[in-house]
């Protein structure tokens, strides 16, 4: 690294002043202390958090709260539902979304711009606005309180994101590849499945994971369209929380950690993409 580069680096990335460091520390504490408290509480005994001299760290740590979660049939059913619904959403969203993205990226037809506009607007519609009609419609076709109801709803609301993500990636594929496939006599469907999709596997996985997270985190639809047997963890925990009040905070925090764990794993797998590639490519800079 040359001397001149060092000076440039010092200007672009100046050292932090003392007030700057202090500010960063305070903001970081605001960001991270609640995460600590979530984790710490999950390992505390129920009596400990209600005691007068309640500690700020798990003095006598216990796994009971986690064990309790896995002994609770209702929560286990919720967990299973969460996996089924989120996986279903991921698969359907990627399949339908990849078709759509390929279409928007490499084909021109009338109505194409209208479709893109519809999806751009679609991502701004809040779920609450669709709730009643969706409820009535699903009920009239006997799909209320089924996995299908949740999966198709989540898929729809993940589609704009899935489509625009994949379209961005397919846009980067040179047209020569498609033309070569055509010259080789490959059908249009074969070109899509044998040439295009294999080339964008990382994008497909990323889109699938985002769709999974969407299905995993939702509350509103899970609460209204799923019914007691099919509802996912956020809805199950919320109903238990409202019903039982604040009876057992450590158990709730442990359940919260378990609910967050799959998302943390996905984040670790995708972190590079999240932090650097995505944000910088996503915003016009």
């Amino acid at each position, binding site marked *: 690294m040359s001397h001149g580069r060092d000076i440039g680096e010092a*200007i672009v990335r100046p050292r932090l002043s003392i007030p700057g460091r202090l500010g960063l520390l305070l903001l970081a504490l605001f*960001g991270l202390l609640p995460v600590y408290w979530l984790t710490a509480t999950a390992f505390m005994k129920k009596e400990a958090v209600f005691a007068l001299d309640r500690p700020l760290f798990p003095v006598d740590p216990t796994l009971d709260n986690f064990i309790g979660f896995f002994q609770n049939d209702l929560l286990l059913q919720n967990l299973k539902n969460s996996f089924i619904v989120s996986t279903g959403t991921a698969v359907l969203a990627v399949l339908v979304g990849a078709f759509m993205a390929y279409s928007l990226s490499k084909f021109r037809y009338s109505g194409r711009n209208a479709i893109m506009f519809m999806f751009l607007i679609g991502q701004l519609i809040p779920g609450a606005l669709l709730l009643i009609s969706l409820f009535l419609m699903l009920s009239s076709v006997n799909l209320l309180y089924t996995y299908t109801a949740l999966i198709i709803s989540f898929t729809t609301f993940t589609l704009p994101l899935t489509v625009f993500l994949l379209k961005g990636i397919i846009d980067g594929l040179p047209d020569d590849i498609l033309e070569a496939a055509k010259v080789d006599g490959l059908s249009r469907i074969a070109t899509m499945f044998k040439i295009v999709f294999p080339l964008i596997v990382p994008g497909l996985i990323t889109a699938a994971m985002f769709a999974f997270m969407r299905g995993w985190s939702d509350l509103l639809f899970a609460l209204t369209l799923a019914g007691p047997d099919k509802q996912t963890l956020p809805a199950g925990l919320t109903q238990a929380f409202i019903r039982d009040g604040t009876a057992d905070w450590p158990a709730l925090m442990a359940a919260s950690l378990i609910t967050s764990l799959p998302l943390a794993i996905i984040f670790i797998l995708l972190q590079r993409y999240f932090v650097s590639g995505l944000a910088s490519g996503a915003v016009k800079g």
Partner: protein
Amino acid sequence: MQQAILDRPATRETTEPRSGRRTTLGAKDRTFGFMIALPAVLLFLVIAIYPLVSSIGTSLYDQSLLRPERTFVGFDNYTAIFGEFVARLGTTLTFATLATIFPVLLGVALAVLLNARIRGRNILRGTLMLPWLLPGVVVSFLWAWIFNDSYGVLNHLLTMVGLPEVSMLGNPTGAMAAVVIAKTWHSFPWIMVVALSVLQTLPSEQLEAATIDGATRSQRFRYISLPHIVGPVALVATLEFIYNFGNFDTIFVMTGGGPGDSTTTLAVSLYQLAFGSYELGKASAMGVLWLILLAIISSAYLLLNRRLEKR
């Protein structure tokens, strides 16, 4: 929410066809292109667009989940809920505005600070993403626990340093502050990541030239860095505002809209009307009024989007 970051590509969809494509794609290709778009379009029409349109119909009926039949009442539902709508709109605007301003300030501040040379900044940036990652309900449970009047850690800490306890969820102002803080905590990482990535695209030559010309550090920030990030940040702020406007989980879990109706936003109110009182017609009327507002706000977003696109 996590879709937010990825929504960004939506703003860049105007990529023009590369040269040579039009000459090789025939009518059959166009048909094929349209056919593979159909599943997504149909799903979207049935699950998103049709419900929006059909809610306009429902809003004209006296319809309840408790009765199978419905009766046409014209605009009665609208007159019945209008006062309620205006009140809830005020609460929604308060929440959406505050829950947008604070994450933006916090996120931009963190981005600027993390853009400096500092040890462990990658680790810090990574771990500060954690709040954004958690499902909304988990964020709500966590902050409800922190703010718990009797056993919450906030009051515990306040007592330890000799300060008076605060009642957050028990009074109207405190409850609004509590949900805003929770939402701020959930959203700031997204703004931080966007602002940071935009800051990193700033050409270093500009900053170096300004330094040679004698610009101080604060001048460089004021006249070079800040104008550079203001557009993208305004865009994410608008999106954040739109999402906050429709927020359900933070408020519903933490306060249920209370105490009283001090934190009852449009989303919570609509849910309560529909699934608490089973008044589908009135709830739909509220939704339609909301939809009209949303159209106005969305136009602002699209306009901003287009302007940035042209830049």
